């Protein structure tokens, strides 16, 4: 980011959430870069940014779409880059219909199931071979990071981009109505601000200069979160900023090893290395499974998915995984749909879940709809909480808001709760993967005190005892437990050696003499069972028996990319798709942005980073696409993971809620969708339940009862649900109390006083917060009316163990998920604000009930898939 010329921080508050990372933005600014912060609030990032653009929460796609429209209509897109490296020239099939024609829906939408059948979006002339793996099935869970498989790489292209069905023309038509006036109407951004943003981004793109986007949960926590990011990707591709130094899109991830926990996922839908979890019905046998991940014919490295999967099974089950039993494929558990944390919470309420492990997380405060989470926990039989201190998720049975309000009695709660003290990051060795995909090793400084124990020791011990309990059983279902490799070298206290686990993740080749050599790159993985690797993208972290994650060359060594520090997957590459930093002939676009280029003499790609491209593939080589796999990658296919080697402006597969990002309003929004009759995203996952009601949106009766929009955010001084910050005196005194930020106009309207108290009501709960009246929150004129926005930090929780407590903003938030990744919409929702503290005990529920009754909220409010246009426009504002 440090060498970017313009940085747009949108959907994220980098100076507050990632202050030390922000030093590089400050560095770029000192060198003259322009920093623009687009956020509903004027935050500490905006304080040092060049420009703050106040946007209505949830309308990011409209703004980015308008930027795309601006770039296209003024011919500002980076021609050579787009034609060569993206699928702009590719033709799309005839039966694709755009949202322009269907009033906000794409073709292939099935209202009953609320899902799209993406076959109508396919490229033109994709030979419809006989057995088309039915893709529509499980929403969004079957797809790894590399994008979905295509039958093969032969696609029709029109390099002149004139053909009406080229992706380029479809893009132009799709965003034709996203004009600056529309942006003012929908996002509340003045044309002057829009023009400033547009000029800044376009002037800083192209050969000489690059623009970089950075986002965080501000984009991901929406019902169309994935589409937010897609819009930015399309814009960056059009401007030619992807794969180049100072360009691209930086995901500002929230936790120490959140990237690590998606690479080696404790997630329901993924196996390590982004291999999808088998889905009942889709992957009933290994061949179907591998075909769904990546066909041999398609380009790119996903074609070798078989070697990745087999190596994983060898790592998991060692010798027990053999060719005969399809490498243990049949023993793997199957998914039958989405099993995200919210579905799990719902199934807890239905008494289907008996046991629950909570590992360093605080769902009672951190997960959306806190009340629902705590109620779910009451239905459990037993629960294990591993944390540093008695967080609210461990003591909810004693001091949760429901116990406090008398709604529930501690004596009636059946759940058994085990609290296991955990070890802190200095009391255990291990590696974190930070937001730039870099693994960094932590050495153990001291032994864990008292009975504290690291998760590794605990789970190793638990695994050993479970295997002990099932050792005798000859029941088939226990085979995997007994076959899995669990024999890690242990030290004198019986704790496994973390480096041995990292070696297993890196992977071995078992030579014929039986001893194991560490692999150095995922290209060495084979599908014949001779290699094993816990996570193929991490292969190379332990190359030639050196723990690369523990490399500590000061300042990352001499190289520009400072790569002598830690290890970035895949194969220590720092900027992905960096082939795109050179033009189709292999020469850098410009000297200033030189990064990776083709060295004619050595016939090799060279540069400041590990080239993200087959090293010896000449720029002009055009192999026969039928060959498939990495070999099929042409010299100008920088996007080596995509099945056609190109950057996807139009995503025929991979996203379940539309090939092109389209603006929809949030699940509950006091504003009508200015662009389409369709109010909300049709494919969003909705959970119509009595304890998950939604506020009526604009145009439906009762919309005026919850007139304000609230957005949640993080403070620098606290950490997520407060588990690691509300127990620390030094951090608690910096931000001691839950507060809400309101504009002076809203404060006047509702009689709020600075430092006073306010009660915030949403259809889910009633909470109280101190009031900070500030001009940093601005009312916006949207859709012809004033929309007030309320800012709520979400770090506080009710309980009496923490140093500072307060109501939790997450109680206000409902559960409506983005279909692609099951992330809840906690960045924008509706609420009402009343001056004074909230009523105590049962009176709070009474207030809530009266509000919902006045608003006429029922289980069906906002839960309509397709907004029927006939409904007359009731706006009793």
């Amino acid at each position, binding site marked *: 980011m440090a060498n970017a010329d313009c940085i747009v921080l949108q959907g994220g508050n980098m100076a507050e959430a990632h202050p030390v990372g922000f030093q590089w933005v400050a560095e770029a600014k000192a060198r003259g870069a322009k920093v623009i912060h687009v956020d509903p609030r004027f935050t500490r990032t905006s304080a040092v940014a060049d420009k703050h653009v106040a946007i209505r929460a949830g309308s990011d796609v409209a703004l980015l779409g308008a930027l795309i429209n601006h770039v296209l209509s003024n011919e500002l897109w980076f021609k050579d880059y787009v034609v060569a490296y993206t699928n702009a020239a590719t033709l799309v099939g005839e039966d694709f219909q755009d949202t322009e024609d269907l009033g906000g829906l794409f073709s292939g939408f099935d209202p009953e199931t609320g899902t799209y059948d993406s076959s109508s979006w396919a490229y033109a002339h994709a030979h419809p071979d006989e057995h088309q793996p039915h893709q529509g099935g499980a929403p969004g869970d079957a797809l790894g990071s590399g994008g979905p498989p295509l039958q093969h790489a032969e696609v029709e292209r029109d390099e002149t981009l004139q053909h009406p069905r080229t992706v380029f023309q479809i893009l132009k038509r799709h965003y034709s109505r996203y004009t600056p006036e529309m942006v003012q109407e929908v996002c509340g951004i003045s044309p002057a601000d829009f023009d400033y943003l547009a000029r800044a981004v376009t002037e800083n793109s192209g050969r000489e200069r690059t623009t970089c986007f950075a986002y965080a949960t501000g984009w991901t926590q929406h019902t169309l979160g994935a589409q937010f990011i897609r819009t930015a990707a399309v814009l960056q591709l059009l401007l030619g900023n992807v794969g180049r130094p100072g360009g691209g899109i930086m995901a500002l991830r929230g936790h120490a090893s959140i990237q690590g926990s998606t690479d080696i996922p404790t997630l329901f839908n993924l196996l390590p290395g982004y291999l999808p979890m088998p889905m009942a019905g889709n992957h009933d046998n290994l061949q179907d499974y591998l075909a769904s991940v990546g066909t041999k014919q398609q380009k790119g490295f996903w074609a070798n998915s078989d070697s990745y999967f087999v190596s994983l099974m060898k790592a998991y089950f060692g010798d027990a995984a053999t060719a005969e039993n399809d490498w243990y494929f049949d023993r793997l558990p199957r998914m039958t749909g989405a099993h995200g944390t919210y579905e799990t919470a719902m199934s807890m309420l239905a008494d289907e879940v008996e046991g629950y492990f909570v590992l360093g997380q605080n769902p009672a405060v951190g997960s959306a709809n806190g009340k629902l989470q705590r109620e779910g926990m009451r239905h459990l039989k037993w629960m294990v909480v591993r944390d540093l201190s008695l967080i609210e998720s461990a003591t909810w049975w004693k001091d949760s808001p429901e116990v406090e309000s008398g709604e529930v009695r501690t004596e009636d709660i059946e759940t058994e709760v085990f609290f296991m003290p955990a070890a802190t990051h200095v009391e255990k060795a291990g590696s974190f993967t930070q937001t730039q995909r870099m693994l960094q090793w932590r050495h153990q400084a001291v032994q864990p005190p008292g009975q504290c124990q690291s998760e590794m020791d605990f789970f190793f011990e638990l695994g050993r005892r479970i295997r002990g309990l099932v050792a005798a059983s000859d029941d088939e279902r226990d085979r995997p437990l007994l076959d899995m490799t669990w024999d890690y070298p242990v030290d004198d206290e019986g704790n496994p050696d973390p480096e041995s686990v990292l070696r297993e993740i890196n992977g071995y080749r078992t030579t014929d003499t039986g001893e194991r050599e560490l692999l150095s790159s995922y290209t060495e993985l084979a599908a014949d069972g001779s290699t094993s690797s816990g996570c193929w993208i991490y292969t190379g972290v332990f190359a030639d028996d050196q723990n690369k994650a523990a490399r500590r060359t000061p300042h990352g060594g001499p190289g520009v990319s400072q790569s002598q520090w830690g290890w970035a997957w895949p194969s220590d590459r720092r900027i992905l798709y960096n082939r795109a930093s050179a033009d189709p002939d292999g020469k850098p676009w410009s000297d200033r942005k030189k990064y990776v280029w083709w060295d004619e003499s050595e016939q090799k790609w060279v540069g400041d980073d590990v080239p993200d491209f087959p090293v010896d593939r000449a720029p002009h080589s055009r192999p026969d696409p039928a060959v498939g796999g990495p070999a099929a990658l042409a010299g100008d296919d920088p996007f080596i993971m995509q099945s056609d080697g190109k950057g996807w402006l139009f995503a025929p597969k991979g996203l379940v809620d539309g090939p092109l990002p389209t603006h929809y309003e949030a699940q509950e929004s006091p504003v009508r969708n200015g662009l389409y009759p369709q109010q909300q995203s049709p494919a969003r996952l909705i959970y119509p339940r009595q304890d998950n009601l939604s506020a009526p949106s604009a145009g439906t009766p009762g919309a005026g009862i919850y007139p304000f929009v609230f957005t949640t955010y993080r403070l620098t001084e606290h950490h997520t649900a407060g588990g690691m910050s509300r127990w620390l005196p030094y951090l608690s005194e910096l931000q*001691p109390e839950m507060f809400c930020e309101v504009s002076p106009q809203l404060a006047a309207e509702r009689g709020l006083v600075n430092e006073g108290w306010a009660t915030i009501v949403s259809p889910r709960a009633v909470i109280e917060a101190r009031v900070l009246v500030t001009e940093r929150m601005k009312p916006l004129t949207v859709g012809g009316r004033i929309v007030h926005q309320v800012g709520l930090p979400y770090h506080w929780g009710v309980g009496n163990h923490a140093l500072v407590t307060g109501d939790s903003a997450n109680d206000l938030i409902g559960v409506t998920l983005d279909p692609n990744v099951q992330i809840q919409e906690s960045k924008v929702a509706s609420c009402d604000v009343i001056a004074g503290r909230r009523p105590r005990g049962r009176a709070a529920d009474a207030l809530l009930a009266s509000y919902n009754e006045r608003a006429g909220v029922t289980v069906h409010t906002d839960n309509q898939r397709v907004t029927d246009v006939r409904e007359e426009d009731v706006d009793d504002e």
Partner: protein
Amino acid sequence: MSSQAAQSVTNYARGASHQFSGPTDPAADAHWPSGQVRKGFFTDTSICIGCKACEVACKEWNHNPRDGDLELTGWSYDNTQSLGASTWRHVAFIEQDRERIEQARESGRKLVDLGMPAVRPSGSSSGEGRAAYRDQDVTPPDTPEFRWLMASDVCKHCTHAGCLDVCPTGALFRTEFGSVVVQDDVCNGCGTCVAGCPFGVIERRSDGTAAPTTRSGEKKGEQPDVPKRGVAQKCTLCYDRLVDGETPACAKTCPTTSIKFGDHPDLVETARDRVHQLHEEGLTEARLYGANELDGVGGTGAMFLLLDEPETYGLPPDPRVPTADLPVMFRRAGLAAAGMLAGAAVAFLGGGR
């Protein structure tokens, strides 16, 4: 001690190399043998992001207890209110609308027009390198309607330190690095230094007037047991770290290097460059605070780049070390004593009525 004695003391004091005001090298003035260069801070508030890492790092290094009673103050994002016995770094937050920005710019312009004798003509500063690089016009930043000032405040380590001079026990002393440090094994908590500091930095722990509430314990409203209770406390410029050549905790942890640590002369140089650079950008409200060694305290060890009048940040506009007027006070006191003696003499000579 008659007035003549008082007179001689002041002459003697002025005669020797000791001074009470004006530019001096404090460490040399205190006769430290080693030729250490004076260390100091330069806090550039224009790039401060208000993250308060300095507050936490300082407390953590010095094991200062939590103070304040965990109440929201309503002062924007500042809940620790001010420097004190247990808070040696404090970040101020000020929200300003368009009108206040104009006022600040206006007062900044007035400062510039005063024709401050810039030690070096700004042109010769490393401007050339930057000017070529920065071709934009000189328009102020593009968010004129609102501004959020953030500034990290600290002890100034003045060249002529009011607290040091008035301390009767010698607990406060000038280190070889030119910083002012309290020796907590000597101080008996008399409290004179608290009144002596023109910036209101130093404070006696536990019952200092701005001290934490007396409730004790960990939870809200409870105050942890306070180490070094009853002794005056303030920033030591991490004297223990300096002795081992390490950077002070706050300067090391500041993510955007808004807090710069280094040799005082270089920092003055950096400060002047930075303020010229901002003026070239049209930010005329930028001004330096404490960089002028002719001011009331002889220039400060910790200098600041502010974007508004000092009072907006809670800093005094024209601080002056009280010792500067000490000779006058001694003279007047000698006079009063003489007057009293004379009165007594007259009373007795006049005979008892």
